[in-house]
């Protein structure tokens, strides 16, 4: 790519103002400091213009040799600093996936604040300003597999307008109608926190870890779509949205207080969205109509990606920086003490889930529905412990942290 010796280029009758620089500047850029570019030119005005231009640009104009109306100008590349914070050999892409690109240009250990928005691998001109990214250490910037998750996310984007069979929706008996609307209200409310919390951290991730910022962008788009679909479903059958509980608001406020990206990912994705996976599966199983089932099925698919990212991110940080273990545990303890007065999921949500699982309001089915709801809580707890263990916590820690998790699920 670069040559230390000399490069010969031809400029025809071009002048500085008519396109010559488009061949001269790139040639100098690819030449190492001290290397020489020789330029053949038939335009004699360059005899005067080139030396002056070289001085302005801090190159060294060596001499001009003239023969048969052709001037050959010799220019020595000036001492231009080109920083290389990131060095990999060139390659050709074959798959065009982000996973492939990341495999060829792996995450750096740390990123320089001055590289700013310069893409990984670009040579940097010196004298750059510092950018205020707080995450420039790979241990806290996301796991390497985030590229694969981003590829999955872009492949699996869907649209609430085109992919949901809204026209098939028929009015349900009133209790089920109300239950669906309440559940959708709860889901949408919690989804807002999943939209707002990660968005705060996108701008803190150094762009050298672009896979993480790009993935977070897909996550935000996912959450926006979930809110959109859940709210449409809440209104679709002539009901208004249900009730928003103080306990949900308390729980989400304490989630928003997460102080850094890792803590936010842990509380939101591993614990909150993880628990939501079981909730969404429950709603899909007991959905009274195909539209509700399809919405939560698709949302669940997206959420499992967010949870996958969360577990991998926490696992990567814990394994490379064991000291964050205490920090993460403390964050769960902080939330638990914030929410010490909360005893269970919001009552209106509990009732709505029982009615959905019952399918109607006959005492026999309600009893069955209630059993299903209690089973859901057990399932949530079991799976939360599994996810905590996958994230790198011990059995004992996982039991303890799962127990402290908010009864609001998110």
């Amino acid at each position: 790519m670069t040559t230390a010796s000399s490069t010969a280029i031809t400029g025809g009758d071009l002048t500085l103002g008519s396109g010559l620089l488009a061949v001269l500047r790139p040639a100098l850029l690819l030449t190492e400091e001290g290397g020489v570019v020789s330029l053949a030119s038939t335009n004699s005005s360059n005899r005067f213009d080139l030396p002056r231009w070289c001085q302005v640009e801090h190159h060294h104009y060596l001499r001009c040799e003239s023969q048969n109306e052709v001037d050959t100008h010799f220019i020595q590349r000036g001492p231009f600093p080109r920083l290389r914070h990131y060095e990999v050999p060139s390659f050709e892409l074959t798959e065009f996936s982000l996973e492939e690109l990341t495999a060829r240009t792996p995450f750096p250990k740390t990123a320089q604040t001055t590289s700013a928005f310069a893409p990984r691998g670009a040579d940097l001109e010196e004298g750059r300003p510092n950018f205020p990214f707080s995450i420039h250490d790979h241990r806290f910037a996301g796991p390497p597999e985030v590229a694969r998750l981003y590829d999955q996310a872009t492949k699996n984007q869907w649209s609430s307008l085109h992919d949901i069979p809204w026209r098939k929706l028929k009015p349900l008996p009133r209790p089920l109608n109300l239950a669906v609307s309440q559940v959708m209200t709860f889901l949408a409310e919690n989804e807002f926190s999943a939209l707002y919390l990660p968005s705060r951290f996108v701008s803190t991730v150094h762009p050298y870890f672009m896979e993480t910022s790009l993935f977070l962008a897909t996550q935000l788009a996912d959450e926006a779509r979930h809110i959109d679909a859940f709210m449409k479903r809440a209104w679709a059958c002539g009901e208004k949205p249900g009730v928003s509980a103080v306990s949900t608001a308390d729980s989400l406020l304490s989630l928003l207080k997460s102080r850094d990206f890792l803590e936010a990912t842990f509380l939101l994705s591993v614990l909150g969205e993880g628990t939501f996976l079981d909730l969404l599966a429950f709603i899909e199983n007991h959905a009274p109509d195909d539209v509700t089932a399809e919405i939560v099925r698709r949302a669940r698919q997206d959420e499992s990606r967010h949870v996958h990212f969360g577990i991998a991110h926490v696992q990567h940080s814990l394994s490379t920086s064991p000291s964050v273990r205490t920090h993460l545990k403390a964050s769960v303890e902080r939330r638990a003490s914030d929410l010490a007065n909360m005893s269970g999921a919001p009552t209106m949500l509990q009732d709505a889930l029982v009615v959905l699982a019952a399918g109607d309001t006959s005492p026999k089915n309600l009893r069955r529905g209630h059993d299903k709801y209690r089973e859901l809580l057990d399932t949530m707890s079991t799976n939360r412990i599994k996810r905590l263990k996958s994230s790198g916590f011990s059995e004992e820690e996982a039991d303890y942290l799962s127990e402290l998790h908010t009864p609001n699920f998110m």
Partner: protein
Amino acid sequence: MAKDTIILGAVAYLPKVVTIWEGIRDFFEAQGAPLDFVLFSNYERQVEYLLESKIDIAWNAPLAHVRIKHHTGGKSLSLGMRDSDRDFHSRLIVRKDSAIKNPKDIEGKTLAVGSRDSTQAKILPLHFLKAEGVDLNKVNVVSFDVDLGKHGDTGMSELDVLAALHDGKAPAGTIGDLIWVTEQAAGHIDPNVVECVWVTPGFDHCMFDALPNLDPQKVERFKKALFAMKWENASHRRLLELEGLKEWLPPREEGYKSLKEAVSDQKIAL
């Protein structure tokens, strides 16, 4: 203010001048040569203040340098210059459709020139054209007198000359070669319309001037700090790039000979 602080005068021809001198002041401070600067709106006042010893050193454009030399009987101290101040040239540029191929051809035509106090855009190009045998009495010289007092530092009058040629208001004009190459490189010059047909001999540009009686220790401290500024050092480089040089060089007087002759010939008040 400590009495060993060097007080330097500079003309504020653009806002970046403040950035430049604040940077240089901090650099000098770090070099153990305390320095403060005073900004002037024009070179006339700066020259007056130096001659009255109200400032220690003036960063002077060539006409101001020649004035200081004149008023001190050639005894003023020259302390240093930029590499880019050496071998400045001016250009005779013409419209391609004007049939002007060499200096003589401008007789009987309109010649757009820069401000009357611009060395590179008016004083020296006219001087050199005359030396080339052009009868200036036969030339309709139109001067763009903008930013007077700043001696052409802003380059505005040269941009006016270029615009006049592009707009067909004048078939020929004179500008300095710095504007000529930077405007070409920026794509602001239409090569189908405008070309350069003649280059003047070289001359030198700015200089740090001081009176002969300036405290020799200040002179020493100033020179030592100035020449310690190195392109290889990234923090110095930022200042050097702003001020448009790669290296500070020792002074040389012969680069102002043509300007001295021009000033006397054109009866410019000193």
